[in-house]
C-alpha cells in the first residue's frame, strides 16, 4: 500500500475542504472495509484519506413516520440491531445482518457501501427495491439515478453521502445466494411492495451492478405470489461469470432468489 496523508476532520465543512485541498488524489474513508483491501492491492493509491469518523451527525437512525433515515456512518451491525429498523423495515435489518461477518458488520458503513457500489454488495439492491433517496452534502438523489453501473455512482469526486432515506414499505424481503467465503451476493434479490408499487432489485448477478426486473414487477403487481415470479426467466446476457457461478447459473439464481424473497414477504 502506498503512503498517504490521513485527515481527521471534525466537521463536514472541514471534510469537504480536506477533500478539495487534496485534489484528484483525495478520498473519503468510512469503515475502510472496501477501500483498504483495494489499496493493499494498489488498485487505488490516494494521496490523502479523509476520515468521516469524527464528523458529527452521520451516525443516527431516525424514524420519520413514512420513512426511516439512516446516517451514512451507521455500521451494518448498528442497522441490523436498530429497534427502529427492525420495527419499520425488518427486511433491511435482516439484510444488514447478512453482510460479511461480525467484524465486517462492526466496521463497514451504509455510506461506504452505496458510494462504492460493488456489483456484489447488498445495500444497492435494498436501496433500489425500497426506492431509497441518497442524501448528500448538497442534494438528494433517488436510487434509480444514483447507481450507475459497476463501482459507478452519481456522486461528484468531492461529494459526501450524509444519509440514506428509505420509504417504509407495506412488505419487503431480501433473499441472497451468498458466496460461501465472503458472503458477498452471487445473486441477491430484494422485493418490496411500497409506496411506488412493487419493485424487484437484483445485485451480485450483473456486470452492470444493481438492476430492476420489470417483468417480475408487473407479474407481482397482478398477483403477489412466489408462483408469479417463478416462471419469469432472466437473460444471462451481461451476467457475471466467475469461480462462484457462471452466467447461466446466476441468471437461474435470480429467479429462485426472487421467488424466495416474495414468499418471505408473507
Amino acid at each position, binding site marked *: 500500500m502506498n*503512503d498517504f496523508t490521513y485527515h481527521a476532520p471534525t466537521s463536514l465543512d472541514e471534510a469537504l475542504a480536506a477533500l478539495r485541498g487534496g485534489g484528484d488524489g483525495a478520498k473519503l474513508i468510512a469503515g*475502510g472495509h472496501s477501500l*483498504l483491501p483495494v489499496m493493499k492491492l494498489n488498485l487505488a493509491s490516494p494521496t490523502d484519506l479523509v476520515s468521516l469518523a469524527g464528523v458529527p451527525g452521520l451516525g443516527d437512525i431516525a424514524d420519520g413516520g413514512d420513512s426511516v433515515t439512516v446516517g451514512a456512518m451507521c455500521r451494518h451491525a448498528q442497522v441490523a440491531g436498530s429497534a427502529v429498523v427492525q420495527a419499520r423495515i425488518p427486511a433491511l435489518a435482516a439484510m444488514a445482518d447478512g453482510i460479511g461477518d*461480525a467484524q465486517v458488520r462492526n466496521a463497514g458503513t451504509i455510506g461506504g457501501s452505496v458510494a462504492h457500489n460493488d456489483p456484489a454488495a447488498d445495500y444497492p439492491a435494498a436501496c433500489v427495491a425500497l426506492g431509497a433517496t441518497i442524501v448528500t452534502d448538497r442534494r438528494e438523489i433517488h436510487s434509480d439515478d444514483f447507481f450507475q453501473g459497476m463501482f459507478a455512482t452519481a456522486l461528484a469526486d468531492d461529494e459526501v453521502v450524509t444519509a440514506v432515506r428509505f420509504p417504509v414499505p407495506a412488505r419487503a424481503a431480501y433473499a441472497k445466494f451468498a458466496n460461501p467465503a465472503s458472503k458477498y451476493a452471487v445473486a441477491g434479490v430484494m422485493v418490496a411492495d411500497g409506496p411506488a408499487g412493487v419493485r424487484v432489485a437484483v445485485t451480485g448477478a450483473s456486470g452492470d451492478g444493481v438492476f430492476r426486473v420489470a417483468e417480475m414487477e408487473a407479474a407481482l403487481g397482478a398477483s403477489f405470489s412466489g408462483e408469479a415470479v417463478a416462471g419469469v426467466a432472466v437473460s444471462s446476457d451481461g451476467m457475471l461469470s466467475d469461480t462462484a457461478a457462471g452466467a447461466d447459473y446466476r441468471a437461474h439464481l435470480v429467479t429462485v432468489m426472487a421467488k424466495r424473497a416474495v414468499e418471505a414477504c408473507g
Partner: protein
Amino acid sequence: MPTVTMTVNGMERSGNVEGRTLLVEFLREHLGLTGTHVGCDTSQCGACVVHVNGTSVKSCTSLAAQADGAEVTTIEGLANGSDLHPMQEAFREHHGLQCGFCTPGMVMSAVDLANQNSDPSEHEVREWLEGNLCRCTGYHNIVKAVQAGAKAMGGGS
C-alpha cells in the same frame, strides 16, 4: 510522521506512524504485542481480531490512525496476571485449539459475542465465527469452548 495515541490494554501508548500503518502493524511492530496474528492480510481469516472501543474488528483492515484516541484490547489484555480470562480458560478446558494460530482472533471474537449474549446457541456461535478461520480443529471444540466461556463470563467481560 503523524503521532497516534491510544489506550492499549489499559495503558496509554503513543507512536509515530505512517498514514498507511495498519493497526495490526502498530500493535505487533511498534508495541511488540505479537499475540495478534496476521493470517491472510486480506480481511478473511480473523486471526487479527482485536477490540476497538469494545467491539471486535479486523486489525489488518484498520489503520492505526483510525484507532487514534480509542480503547484497544488485544489478547494480551484479557488475562489477569496468571489467571486466564474465562474465555481463555474455556478454550483450554475444551481443547478449542491445536496449533493456536487462529486462537487469539477466535477468543477476541468470542468475547465480543459473549458480551452481547451470555448463552449463545451452537448455531449462534457458528454464525458469529463466520469471519474466523481455523485450519486445525474442525471448529467443534471451538464452538463448545465459546459456549462454555460465554456462560462462565455470565454477561460481562
